[in-house]
């Protein structure tokens, strides 16, 4: 069947579907919703409505209207200095004081009277381009507003969908990079199916003169922005905006809908929720949906509506699966799901045993040490031999077989002043992990070692005894008893796991 034939059939089918009404006279190939041609439901009815605007991650309630209304939106532009990461501040330019800006919710066919106010304390003029507007510039030219002034323009929301809005004042990239974007939802006339929870999350990339997490106030770096070399990639404008106490919260058995936008300015998002599968994705913020999706692509200046049902309790991590952005640039958010365990769906860890890869010539010393420890005859030599085997399986990937580590990434253990200075601290680190800056032999490291929670006290003691007596180290012996004591008196970092 040729493409032309298909097109002809499609048009024929549509004409039939329209029942031969007057409107069907047009042969414009529209989809089931009819697009903007079918989005005008006539003049607004009733008294004007003031739109409820919400700050992220909250979403305004459904409009619950069956008639087109006149909706008044009042949005204020404010330039604010806020943390972008711990100990790092940035001057954000915002719609409504937050990044992303306030969420706007209207119904298809509504007439929106838009008031853009630019705070008198602003340094810059600003405007707004709403992708949900039909008209040149999306409102940008009509809303160009000096500090201490307000502009007004009106549009009819002809197309349903989830749309990005953003500032378009020169230099537009910088205004967007400073956080000037948000979402407007144009509900279909019948509204969206009810769900238990709705969230508003928006990704953006940021460009600072200092590198990622460099402390102090950071200025915008134009060259990095032009090079598309982001310092931060963030959900809702700050590292930690949606983690810890600010995590999104829901319960098992609930149906969740997330309105996900991507403000850019540069990067396209590979949006993914670790441990969940999107039951439904309205990709590109449009009308059609895909089911059973792992990762959905969200273009800069685009959006998607994702929905999923929650079965298993725990933390679900929202990431940009262009994964270095999650690990090294901050693109992480948490959905905290409470509820009873569902071992029938997900068991949790059922088994953890030694897997001895070909890296290990001979597991015998480990068995010998286990026996000796049980009978109370364990010698230092047995510990070192057993520790060597365990070290190769557990530690050498980072610290290397030579104990030399990797410069700037993984600290050395060989002749390490940090290791040899404090045996108890070393035990604690193996048990509980270590995050953040350390100084080893005069070199600076800032990385993450996960807790080695899979090792028992004997194994930790043997590994450390091996490390303390290898590569020129001359550091004595660690006993299982010491490890037991430290395990009992220290606390593993919350949420950390190997």
């Amino acid at each position, binding site marked *: 069947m040729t493409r032309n034939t298909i097109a002809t059939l499609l048009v024929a089918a549509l004409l039939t579907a329209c029942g031969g009404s007057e409107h069907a006279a047009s042969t414009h190939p529209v989809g089931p919703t009819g697009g903007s041609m079918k989005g005008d439901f006539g003049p607004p009815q009733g008294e004007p409505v003031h739109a409820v605007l919400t700050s992220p991650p909250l979403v305004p309630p459904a409009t619950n209207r069956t008639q087109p209304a006149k909706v008044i939106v009042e949005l204020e532009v404010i*330039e*604010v*200095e806020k943390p972008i990461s711990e100990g790092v501040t*940035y*001057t954000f330019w915002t719609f409504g004081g937050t990044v992303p800006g306030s969420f706007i919710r209207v119904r298809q066919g509504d007439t929106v009277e838009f008031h853009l106010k630019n705070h*008198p*304390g*602003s*340094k*810059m*003029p600003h*405007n707004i*381009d709403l992708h949900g507007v039909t008209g*040149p*510039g999306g409102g*940008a*030219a*009509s809303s*160009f*507003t*000096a*500090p*201490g*002034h307000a502009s007004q323009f009106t549009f009819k929301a002809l197309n349903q969908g989830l749309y990005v809005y953003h500032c*378009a*004042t*020169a*230099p*537009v990239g*910088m205004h967007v990079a400073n956080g000037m974007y948000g979402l407007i939802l144009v509900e279909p006339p019948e509204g969206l199916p009810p769900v238990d929870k709705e969230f508003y999350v928006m990704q953006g990339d940021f460009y600072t*003169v200092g590198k990622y997490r460099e402390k102090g*106030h*950071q*200025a*915008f*770096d*134009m*060259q990095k922005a*032009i090079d598309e070399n982001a310092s931060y990639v963030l959900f809702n404008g700050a590292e930690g905006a949606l983690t810890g106490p600010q995590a999104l919260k829901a319960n098992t058995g609930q149906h969740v809908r997330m309105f996900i936008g991507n403000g850019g300015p540069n990067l396209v998002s590979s949006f993914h929720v670790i441990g969940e599968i999107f039951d439904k994705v309205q990709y590109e913020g449009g009308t059609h949906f895909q089911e059973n999706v792992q990762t959905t692509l969200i273009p800069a200046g685009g959006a998607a509506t994702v929905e999923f049902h929650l079965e298993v309790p725990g933390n679900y991590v929202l990431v940009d699966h262009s994964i270095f952005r999650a690990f090294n640039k901050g693109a992480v958010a948490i959905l905290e799901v409470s509820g009873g365990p569902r071992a029938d769906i997900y068991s949790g860890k059922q088994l953890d045993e030694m897997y001895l890869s070909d890296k290990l010539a001979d597991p015998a010393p480990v068995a010998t040490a286990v026996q000796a420890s049980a009978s109370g005859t364990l010698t230092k030599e047995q510990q070192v031999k057993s520790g060597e085997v365990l070290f190769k399986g557990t530690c050498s990937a980072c610290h290397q077989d030579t104990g030399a580590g990797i410069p700037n990434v993984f600290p050395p253990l060989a002749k390490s002043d940090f290791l040899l200075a404090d045996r108890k601290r070393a035990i604690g680190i193996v048990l509980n992990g270590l995050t953040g800056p350390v100084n080893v032999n005069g070199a600076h490291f800032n990385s993450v070692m996960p807790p080695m929670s899979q090792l028992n006290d004997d194994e930790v003691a043997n590994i450390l005894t091996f490390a303390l007596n290898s590569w020129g180290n001359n550091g004595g012996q660690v006993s299982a008893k010491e490890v037991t004591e430290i395990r009992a008196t220290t606390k593993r970092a919350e949420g950390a796991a190997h």
Partner: protein
Amino acid sequence: MKRAHNLMAALAMGVCALAAQAEVVSVPIAGGPFESVLPPAANIKVTMVAPFRLDATVVSNADFAEFLGKHPEWRRDRVAGLFADEGYLRHWASAASPGAAIAQQPATQVSWFAASAYCEARGARLPRWYEWEFAAAASATRPDARKDPAWLQEILDWYSKSARGPLPVVGASPPNYFGVRDLHGVVWEWVEDAGSMMVSDDSREQGDPDRNRFCGTGALSFEQKDNYAMMMRIAMLSSMKAAYSSSSMGFRCARDAAVGR
């Protein structure tokens, strides 16, 4: 008592005015061919800047208070509504005096009309955009440092600071190549031809549509796309009408080289 108070104020102002007057220094700038961020027409990249003199510093609140003493029609309680909006000098302690705290800070929240009147009273005028841009292209050591990324970033840093903090006092920044101070990192500045800088309100149109919107300037489109600092100045100026005022918009005066000192 009241009279004594007024007398004190007048005396204090007189002292300020003397001090301020002594500081008004204008420096000669030779001008010459210049490539503006905003070229005069589509095919003309280079414009000629005639020799001119430019104030070394922006006008301070004390300077402006002195002007109001002689021209009280520009006080905030007497100014015609056509020439100034509601924000005009609203941050001053009184209609006649800024108050000691901000006396030496740049005069802001001044309309284009009022700024023009001030300069006229001094036998000067506001600088034209190309003059201002010409002078502001200089770093401390070079007349045109616009290709120096480090210098551009230094200027850009100002935009990364919130406008809420107090302004620095006038003349606090080091002089540039021409001996002019405060061109960057202090305030926006009115220019004489601000009203004709009609770049598109929607920065993404490039040259194309609506040429009829303004006389012959439809071709106005940004050159030097990495000169964000200048773009933002132009965006700010084009968002302001002549009666508008803003807490970060100040001014300085200029004159043709042939006239006066």
